């Protein structure tokens, strides 16, 4: 393994981990989303270094390009950019417990990945054409799953439009305004 390759592999891996840590510790949602974009770019570089060129490209296009833009769009649409408004990081005790759970999970995962899964030597034959093997697998062995994916996307589009449509929510809001908000109901139960 050439030193140049190893150096850059570790570099991009460390960038991914460091920006992921920055992502979970930022209070502002916009800053967090931008750190997550950096993580995704570093992961795309790792995919390319693992000879998955096509996956690297669609990682940048779909994840960093499309999905994160939708996230940022919603953050700004709901005007959640000010970190002072929401105390969304849990208390010190909650953070310590979560950190302990996370470290335990990481230790378990790393033990399993080190010990239990045999690491074969990588396939020495790297195809010159990066996309053709993926396409062959996708459109022959997994053709049915690929077609079902289109139905999944259709359902997602319809579901997103129905959920985000304003009409129903306004009715619900009027019901809440004139009817039984959660607090008063809880108070009645406590009184009874």
């Amino acid at each position, binding site marked *: 393994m050439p030193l140049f390759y190893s150096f850059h592999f570790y570099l991009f891996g460390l960038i991914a981990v460091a920006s992921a840590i920055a992502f979970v510790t930022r209070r502002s949602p916009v800053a967090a989303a931008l750190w997550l974009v950096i993580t995704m770019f570093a992961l795309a570089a*790792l995919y390319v270094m693992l000879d998955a060129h096509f996956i690297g490209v669609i990682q940048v296009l779909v994840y960093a390009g499309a999905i994160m833009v939708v996230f940022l769009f919603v953050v700004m649409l709901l005007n959640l950019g000010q970190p002072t408004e929401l105390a*969304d990081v849990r208390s010190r005790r909650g953070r310590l417990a979560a950190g302990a759970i*996370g470290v335990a999970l990481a230790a378990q995962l790393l033990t399993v990945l080190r010990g239990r899964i045999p690491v074969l030597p*990588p396939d020495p034959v790297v195809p010159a054409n990066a996309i053709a093997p993926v396409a062959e697998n996708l459109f022959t062995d997994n053709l049915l799953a690929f077609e079902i994916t289109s139905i999944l996307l259709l359902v997602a589009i319809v579901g997103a439009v129905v959920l985000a449509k304003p009409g129903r929510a306004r009715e619900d809001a009027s019901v809440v305004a004139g009817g039984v908000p959660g607090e008063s109901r809880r108070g009645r139960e406590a009184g009874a």
Partner: protein
Amino acid sequence: MIAEALFFSGILFAIGVIGVLTRRNAIIVFMCVELMLNAVNLSFVAFSRMHGVAGQTFVVFVMTVAAAEAAVGLAIIIAVFRHRQTVNLDRLDLLKG
């Protein structure tokens, strides 16, 4: 390099879990879930280096599901925000009884 990729994948997944457990903002929790999906994708790609190209096909499917999930989930968050004027997960306790 495959062992190192699996190492980074495990670390990223654990960071995503910590994020889900420590944050209350629904959108950030959702982004942490995306980070966990990305970590799984990394191990898929690493395994596809050993076992053939089927792992990359799986990554394509995972990305499709992630995109659909992002669309539906963010629509739900918008509907909830319109309803309750907050995305703080501790205040969305309607199903708690």
